[in-house]
């Protein structure tokens, strides 16, 4: 998740569309938003992918709105309880909420950018402890434990399903190290001691 040209996360995030309101008239580009006009008229709105919108906004031909995954409704929900929001539902399959947030944050001006950055960081930290806890719990159960939740486990299970792609990577990392530790502790004497 960085500005690396080859980063898959960044490419997927930039594929998302955001709503842009054009300030000038742009001839012969009506097909961009899927509309039927030949030209783009001033003050008309189109959904443009971020990789294209970036240049358009930078050259001051349009303004864009903050997309739905970061709307005030979502922000308030996160401020109330970061762990109850299902981040994976907010953004379509493939892209992550955090990666999208970062891409948009790079386009925003200072004040909004800092506000967005704080929201992202607070959410991340709020959910982090739960990610670790669940990862260690699941290291015990192994890979079979995922399906056996049922009614008892539904709250943690819903949290797990709502994890963003970046959080899933962290989950896997923590789970792997916990599993290795557990295996090492339980294994009897191995290694050099077998030589007699």
């Amino acid at each position: 998740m960085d500005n690396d040209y080859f980063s898959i996360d960044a490419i997927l995030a930039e594929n998302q569309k955001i709503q842009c309101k054009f300030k000038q008239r742009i001839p012969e580009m009506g097909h961009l938003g899927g509309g039927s006009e030949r030209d783009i008229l001033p003050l008309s709105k189109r959904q443009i992918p971020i990789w294209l919108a970036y240049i358009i906004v930078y050259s001051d031909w349009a303004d864009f709105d903050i997309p739905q995954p970061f709307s005030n409704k979502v922000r308030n929900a996160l401020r109330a309880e970061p762990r109850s929001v299902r981040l994976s539902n907010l953004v379509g399959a493939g892209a992550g909420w955090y990666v999208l947030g970062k891409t948009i944050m790079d386009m925003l001006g200072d004040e909004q950018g800092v506000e967005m950055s704080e929201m992202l960081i607070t959410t991340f930290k709020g959910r982090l402890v739960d990610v670790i806890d669940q990862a260690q719990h699941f290291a015990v159960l192994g890979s079979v434990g995922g399906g056996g939740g049922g009614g008892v486990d539904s709250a943690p299970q819903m949290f797990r399903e709502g994890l963003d792609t970046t959080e899933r990577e962290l989950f896997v990392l923590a789970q792997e190290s916990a599993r290795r530790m557990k295996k090492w502790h339980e294994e009897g004497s191995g290694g050099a001691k077998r030589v007699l």
Partner: protein
Amino acid sequence: MSLPQSLRTSVTPPELELIASQQLIEIIPLIAIEKTAFISGAFGPLQPPRKAQIPLWMAINLKLKKKCHIVAPEWLSVEFLQSRLDEEINEPGFSKLPFRYAEVSKLLLDVQVTFAPDDIQSTDKIRYLLKDLREARQAKSREGVDQINRGELSLSNLCSMEINEIRPFFVHAMGILTHLHRDASAEDQP
């Protein structure tokens, strides 16, 4: 790289065990061995009943062949571990333990149990104490997660196994935080 993602930033516990096995430990040899050259250095001569210092791997090997008695390190005793456990529970911050206590204790206790239950007293009690210590410290490191920020994280007196366990997770999380951060005076352009 063909290493799985989680192994790229840390080592495996058996590798740490191997590294810990190079520590010197005191033994009472039962046979005589001359000064022998090994890859890591020359050890010996072993003259019973005089005590000698040899690497842990060698001590365990001799022990399996019943050719020495291992003198337990002073921290591997019920009193010491109990006092550390009390300190761990009552005070914030981690208590000071030998850096590789997890590996060394596992190696020695396993040898005791399987082969020669005579050198370390009350192995069961020690095992329980070690397990409690581990869990108490794990609980504390979970609290450390709250303090995480993109710059640095300082948890003093953490031991080798524990560091290795949390390293991949913490480093990745700190990387993400760095990406998400935005300075107030930062740039507006590509």
